[in-house]
């Protein structure tokens, strides 16, 4: 099992429950564990009945377990302020307004939210020396996939920018006549330095995701969820990120044999359909099914979470390969 474990899947399938349960399992196995929620609709706080924020905080009553909830809006705001501060230091007051507008605009584009989330992601991964295991409870499939595909996409883009900038600065250097100072110089060019730093960040992210991360997909036994999971597996493998296991959540419990009431008949029918779907999942996916969790009557918290954790057949040992 790798250090970074991601749980993804369609909205509302119980990713938070499963990832919290898994984090609990790791913590109980004496591993310093951090559970990170990246879903804008945070529910980690509900599962542990405790408020979390952007900084890791110990979970009450559980040793070795910390939790945090990433807030991209805060990150966007911070990035905006930082950029503006640099603007104030660099630019003559006459120009500030003009450029200010451009900066504000950039922070309102749809991509800003994702970029901020991605930055926080990478930050968390970089600052994770204190933990043996970091569990990410990610936002629904589409968003996560886009997020994970960012490094590759951005690397290509930044390479192009860097090349253009360098080419242009080199030409400026060459154009400087005699001893005249060139208009731009390669040494100490802040743009090149920035781009280089970004490039390193993306490279780090890509390498870490490829080499130190495991992905699990959570799904419910219904057709929609199965289809979406199929697409997610295909999407992830497109980025060379292998899904290590599937967790089926919300299975209907079977009634006792002697029960013949209407409720029992309904449940029996449902169980039969779901068993069919489970069989489909087993045969259609190459990815192993690591857990099948029955639906609970109450909200999954506290002791129930422990029960769910026990049902997860996912190894917690740091370097062993995933069990199936």
């Amino acid at each position, binding site marked *: 099992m790798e250090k970074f474990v991601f749980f993804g899947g369609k909205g509302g399938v119980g990713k938070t429950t499963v990832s919290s349960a898994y984090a609990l399992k790791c913590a109980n196995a004496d591993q310093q564990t951090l559970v990170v929620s990246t879903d804008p609709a945070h529910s980690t706080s509900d599962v542990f009945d405790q408020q979390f924020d952007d900084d890791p905080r110990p979970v009450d009553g559980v040793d070795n377990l910390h939790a945090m909830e990433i807030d991209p809006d805060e990150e966007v705001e911070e990035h905006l302020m930082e950029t503006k501060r*640099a603007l104030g230091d660099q*630019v003559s007051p006459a120009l500030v307004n003009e450029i200010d507008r451009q*900066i504000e605009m950039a922070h309102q584009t749809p991509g800003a939210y994702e970029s901020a989330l991605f930055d926080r992601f990478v930050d968390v991964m970089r600052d994770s020396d204190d933990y043996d295991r970091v569990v990410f409870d990610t936002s629904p499939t589409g968003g996560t996939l886009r997020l994970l595909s960012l490094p590759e996409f951005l690397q290509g883009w930044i390479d192009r*920018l860097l090349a*253009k900038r360098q080419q242009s*600065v080199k030409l400026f250097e060459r154009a400087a006549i005699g001893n005249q100072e060139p208009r731009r110089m390669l040494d100490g060019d*802040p743009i090149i330095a920035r781009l280089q730093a970004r490039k390193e960040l993306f490279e780090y992210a890509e390498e870490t995701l490829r080499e130190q991360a495991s992905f699990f997909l959570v799904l419910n036994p219904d057709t929609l969820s199965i289809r979406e999971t199929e697409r997610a597996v295909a999407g992830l493998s497109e980025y060379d990120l292998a899904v290590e296991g599937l967790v089926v959540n919300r299975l209907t419990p079977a009634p006792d044999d002697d029960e013949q009431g209407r409720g029992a008949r309904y449940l029996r029918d449902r169980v039969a359909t779901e068993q069919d779907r489970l069989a489909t999942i087993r045969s259609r996916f190459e990815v192993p099914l690591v857990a099948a969790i029955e639906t609970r009557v109450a909200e999954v918290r506290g002791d129930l979470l422990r029960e769910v954790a026990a049902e997860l057949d996912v190894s917690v040992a740091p370097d062993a390969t995933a069990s199936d």
Partner: protein
Amino acid sequence: MTLADRIDRFRAVLDEWLRGLYHGMISHPAYEKIEQEAEDVMDTFMLACFPDAFGIPSPVSYYTAELLPYLDDEFEAWERRMWDRGSVLERKGHQYHF
């Protein structure tokens, strides 16, 4: 003043004139061309960074915004150059001194 001194002085003046002539006729236009080429490449760079200045949405403007403080003079000059440019020929035409 000896003859040798006068020859030296004459050679110095000639040297300066020749260098000036060479600079004016050959090297200066060449430098100008290189500089314009540099500006053109910079324009492409800026367009890749801030397409939203022209109404083309950019998925990465969040990242490029942090470059803006260091691109102040370039940003304005670039915007002006982009709006003013009537055609490719117009700007390329500047490179030739007829």
